[in-house]
């Protein structure tokens, strides 16, 4: 029934701060995902918790007990590694019972456990098969079963679905969540797939350069990210520079140049402050723009991805923004150079203080 708490955890490799002052509490039975650019320290974080590496600084608590001196095999942790799959020369049964076996547990004790695991992941019939004879999806499920068999209470998953095709991956991710919830485990799941994180997690942690940028529920990260970095990394967003020209109790008006103004729900910003205004392409209304917050411009490009069309629009201030919509038969298509007007509800316009390091740096992945 573990709660995991990291206090100020740091890990350095030479000049690289792979984990830099991490503070994070994962509640008992919570399903938490970690996302962040390649190399930001996700695997390092998970390895710190597992006890595979030791932090240079800070402390990790599992159920309020410091685990600094608890070896990995006593942490009751199941670990599914990034890239490392099953033992190729062992069949499924041997793969699953490997952990208990090396710990010297007797056969009688291991057998029922293993049968239960095989049953749970619905591959009992394939227990004699070797990994290469199974589909990628089944192999991944076996890797999870192997991680769980040692009576783990905390499941650490490093890109558990990374090697699978989208269809299998989408199905397995829901199964994974169900499994964790049914077994009442706590899970920390590292993924490079934002959609995966959004769709199965209670909470998502966003990392950058060894640090936690913010953590929140999927919907709050998407609709009300605290930082421009998150707005850019999770989903897509338009970023426009501006200056606050007016504030009331509940709205701010931001001038984004060439006389164009956008209204937003009021945050902490004050008149004359330099700010960044952010809205998502899918929040831009292309067809029946509302009266407030209209933006007019010229279509620069129209891109298709399946049913979704993305219209790139150049505003009078020379900034280009994206607007997204489902391609549909009863609505007009767009031609390059055509003039269009879109609108964004003030509820969906976010305002951030202009970042000290500049916008480009604030959004940078590295």
């Amino acid at each position, binding site marked *: 029934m573990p709660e995991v708490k990291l206090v100020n955890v740091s890990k350095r490799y030479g000049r690289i701060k792979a984990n830099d002052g991490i503070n994070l509490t994962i509640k008992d039975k919570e399903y938490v995902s970690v996302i962040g650019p390649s190399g930001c320290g996700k695997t390092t974080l998970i390895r710190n918790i597992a006890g595979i590496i030791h932090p240079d600084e800070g402390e990790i608590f599992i159920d309020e007990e410091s685990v600094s001196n608890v070896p990995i095999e006593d942490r009751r942790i199941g670990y599914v590694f990034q*890239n490392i799959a099953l033992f190729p020369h062992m069949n499924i049964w041997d793969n699953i019972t490997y952990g208990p076996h090396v710990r010297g547990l007797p056969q009688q004790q291991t057998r029922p456990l293993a049968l239960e695991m095989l049953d749970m992941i619905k591959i009992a019939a394939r227990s004699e098969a070797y990994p290469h004879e199974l589909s990628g999806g089944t192999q991944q499920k076996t890797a999870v079963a192997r991680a769980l068999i040692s009576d783990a209470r905390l499941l650490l998953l490093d890109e558990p679905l990374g090697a699978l095709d989208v269809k299998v991956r989408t199905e397995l991710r829901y199964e994974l969540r169900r499994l964790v919830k049914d077994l009442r485990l706590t899970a920390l799941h590292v993924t490079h797939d934002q959609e995966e994180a959004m769709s199965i997690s209670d909470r998502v942690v966003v990392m950058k350069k060894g640090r936690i940028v913010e953590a929140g529920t999927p919907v709050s990260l998407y609709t009300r990210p605290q930082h421009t970095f998150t707005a850019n990394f999770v989903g897509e967003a338009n970023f426009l520079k501006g200056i606050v020209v007016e504030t009331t109790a509940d709205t701010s008006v931001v001038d984004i140049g060439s006389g164009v103004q956008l209204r937003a729900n009021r945050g902490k910003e004050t008149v004359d402050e330099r700010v960044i205004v952010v809205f998502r392409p899918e929040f831009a209304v292309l067809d029946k723009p509302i009266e407030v917050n209209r933006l007019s411009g010229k279509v620069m490009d129209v891109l*298709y*991805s399946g049913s979704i069309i993305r219209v790139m629009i150049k505003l009078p201030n020379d900034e280009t923004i994206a607007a997204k919509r489902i391609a549909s038969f009863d609505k007009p298509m767009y031609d390059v150079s055509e003039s269009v007007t879109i609108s964004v509800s003030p509820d969906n316009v976010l305002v951030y203080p202009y970042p000290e390091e500049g916008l480009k740096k604030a959004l940078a992945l590295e």
Partner: protein
Amino acid sequence: MPLVKLVNITKKFGEIIALDNIELSIEDGEYLCVLGQTGAGKTTLLRTIAGLIRPDGGEIFIEGELVNDVPPEERDAVYMFQHFALFPHMNVWDNVSFGPSIKNWDNEQVKTISSEVLEMVRLSDRQDAFPSELSGGMQQRVALARGIASGAKILLLDEPLGALDARLRVDLRRQLRRLVKDQKLTAVHVTHDQEEALMTADRIMVLRKGKVEQVGLPSEIYSSPKSIFVASFVGNANFFEGNVIEMDNSGSTIWIRGDYQIRVSQTDRKVGDKVVVAVKPTDVIINPDSHKGKNVFSGMVDSSTFVGGSMKYKVIVGDGMVIFSEALVSNIQELPRPGQEVTVSFHPARCCLFEYPEAGLLKEIEAI
């Protein structure tokens, strides 16, 4: 003349037919993406073109020349491994510049190209690191850089961006395409990411169990799938089983079990035929502005999942017809919730009509 031409290529591993009579022409300068389930034969295909695998039957031509007996290093095609194998004892720079060095390029050239690709994959400042010191995604980027820097004209890329976060993947796929076009290279790019294929490819090839299921423009693959499998595999689909009960110039009417009728624009089946109608979830509109027109159903939201940017709904119509819809969230405050009554609709022209498969529908669409 196509740059690469495969005629009747077959490759077996024991019982398994990994490639089954593959016919394919790749034009000079083309960017071809290959999609397919795990085990479909994608890696085998690339390795066969590279010369790392010898086909059991068929012929491979590169620039019109039969290359079945030409060794890999003389083919001007470089294969980038799915499970990136970097040289562990070499640092990033040496890994990347290895190809051009053994090609006897002059030092300046090696330096220019290696720096350029390292810049592109954003690892310039890690060029002294060894593979064991890099994260999973960084190792993959080094492997990609090494493939590009090899100087080969044909890039065979096996999941080159698979281990990277979505944001970086979007940036890199654009750069990759631009680089291929600028340098007048030709790329065959295997990916499991459909959006990646739809956004980067000139053409997409869908492989299934060793066979070419469909080759076409991205828009054709998505909107005019030739088979139930492609409809299901690319972008997912709702499937409805039924019979054609009426047909005229403007389309066909399909009777669906449970006494529903679906109108489709296609007219290439006969009245009485048992058929399957496929509709993409993204083509199913929730609470459309107008309730006139065809294929409008009332139902109840059974469940909804937020997937970041869009919302997936499961809607139950009447007493049992299930329709999945995927909608962009344009206003999160006004989204229908589970239990709520909604109207769903889809345009007849967005429906694909297929003959009912002999082996049954499930057999065609199962994922694993």
